[in-house]
């Protein structure tokens, strides 16, 4: 695991995420076509677009869940195109999933514990972790960060949808993340829970950047400084939230299209 100094040094140079000519095909279907995108360290960006625009595929190519059919993916300058997902996680990349992908048979605490263990040494240890181990403190901190203390020992399968979404975010914050990919974190949340989510995201340490996919423009535009619009697998427009909102083409294609 890298030290803070190393991370800051890395954060000062180059791009956090750089895609060059990335395409992804599913059989004859082109989900991503020649996408070139760069995101600076610490930058917070929204990726918007209608259903099927290729947003989630874009995230999957960055995390390695689906490798790109062509093109290269760099993470903090390092070519990670062919690395398996767990190797990218160890380099500080995190993600959440559109549909909650949690460990339903384990408690909230065990879920967060696994995420913390996953990016530390001893993840395959045969020795049980003591209650006074430093990692248990990080687990407790993350649980309180997403306001789940009251249900920490409940099975995840018993949690409400909103709580599962919050747990998704806790899992992505475990370890020392440098960059997080958030796939529709607000989907299915109540207005109150959305407010909590915005508070959690804006309170993240400033060196942690993220890409957020979000249909709820209120949430998305409040927590980012730049926006990438996608359409039919291509990048269609990039700019500041205000410019994108005001752009007539965008309004016609997306905001006016009944998706807003």
């Amino acid at each position: 695991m890298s030290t803070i100094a190393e991370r800051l040094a890395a954060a000062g140079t180059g791009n956090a995420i750089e895609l060059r000519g990335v395409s992804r095909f599913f059989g004859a279907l082109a989900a991503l076509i020649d996408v070139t995108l760069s995101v600076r360290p610490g930058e917070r960006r929204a990726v918007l677009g209608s259903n099927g625009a290729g947003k989630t595929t874009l995230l999957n190519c960055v995390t390695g869940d689906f490798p790109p059919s062509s093109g290269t993916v760099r993470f903090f300058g390092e070519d990670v195109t062919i690395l398996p997902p767990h190797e990218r996680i160890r380099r500080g990349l995190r993600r959440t999933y559109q549909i909650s992908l949690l460990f339903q048979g384990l408690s909230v605490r065990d879920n967060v514990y696994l995420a913390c263990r996953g990016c530390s040494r001893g993840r395959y240890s045969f020795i049980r972790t003591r209650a006074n181990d430093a990692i248990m403190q990080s687990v407790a901190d993350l649980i309180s960060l997403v306001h789940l203390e009251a249900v920490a020992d409940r099975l995840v399968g018993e949690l409400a949808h909103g709580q599962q979404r919050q747990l998704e975010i806790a899992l992505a914050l475990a370890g020392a993340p440098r960059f997080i990919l958030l796939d529709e974190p607000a989907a299915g949340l109540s207005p109150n829970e959305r407010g909590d989510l915005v508070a959690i995201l804006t309170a993240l340490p400033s060196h942690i950047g993220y890409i957020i996919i979000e249909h709820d423009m209120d949430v998305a535009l409040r927590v980012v400084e730049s926006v990438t619009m996608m359409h039919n697998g291509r990048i269609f427009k990039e700019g500041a939230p205000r410019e994108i909102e005001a752009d007539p083409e965008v309004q016609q294609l997306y905001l006016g299209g009944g998706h807003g």
Partner: protein
Amino acid sequence: MALAQTTETPIGVGAQQRSVSPWIAKQAPNLLLGLVLVLLPAVANDFILDQILGWTLILGMIALSLMFLAGYGGMVSLAQMSVAGVSGYMIAVLGTSSLPKISLFWPWWVAAPLSIGIAVLFGTFAGALSARTEGIYTIMITLALAAAFFYLTLQNWPVFNGFNGFTTIPAPHFLGVNWRDPVPLYYMILFFAALSYAVVLYLSRSPFGLALQGVRDNPRRMEAIGYNVTAHRIAAYAFAALIAAVGGILMVWLNNQISPFSIGIDVVINLLVIAVVGGLSHPIGPFIGALIYVILRTFALDALVAVGLDGRRFQTLIGLGFLIIVLFSPDGVVGIWRRLSERARAAGGRNGA
């Protein structure tokens, strides 16, 4: 498929209270059971000790290796009986048997560790073959391995001595104890069975065991939080193979023989039945399943004849029992026990309030 639930104890709680008495209180059922099993030779005869309990503990161990993979890892491996078979055959080939042409007559302290090592390699190989598959495909691949090993032993004469197999493979004589005598043999089997049970129970709350349960619930997410799922699955197979391999050697020492029919497809299926009937959600399940199986196998014949039925129908009885358990309690006898105790606790809570 029943899933292992180990959430009653949050991580580390228990380690937090370092005093001894809460630990004893929590372990009371295990300690009591252990005490009964240790004192049993004072009252039970050799038949009960070896043919009932010895068999139960050995089958329980081999089924425990299946339970570890299936309950915690979500991988139903039918190759575990074959892993036991490999170590059982190897102890006959490398050690002592009635076949001087094949057996090497190496001392037990060379032959036994080597046999276990070879069996663990075989089990790890089975894991490497099936780690990228899920569900029915894992079952098919491991079943194919079990069938292949059965036919190999049946048709190979130079090493496995074909369908005759090996006889006269006694437990060794060391520390001044003749371990082939019924009572020492019972204690040896009890020691290894209790050790495997305790280690599996302990591992279920270790990072290795918790991560395995994570792999069971959601392999893709495990990749996304930094685990190498394939490597982890293979490591789990290797650990499970260790338990099955020790069980295999004990099985040969108890029976004094091994042949292809000790590891045939029907035995492989019986092992799965034992694990499922007992319950895949807790390591005690396989031992309960094995006890039910051994008792049925030993006494059902006489009981059936006594009520005027054909004694050979005892397999039907086992099959019916399996159907009933799977229909009414997908997590086996352990699941029935859990539901009953929860109901009792709920009723007690109502009365108390």
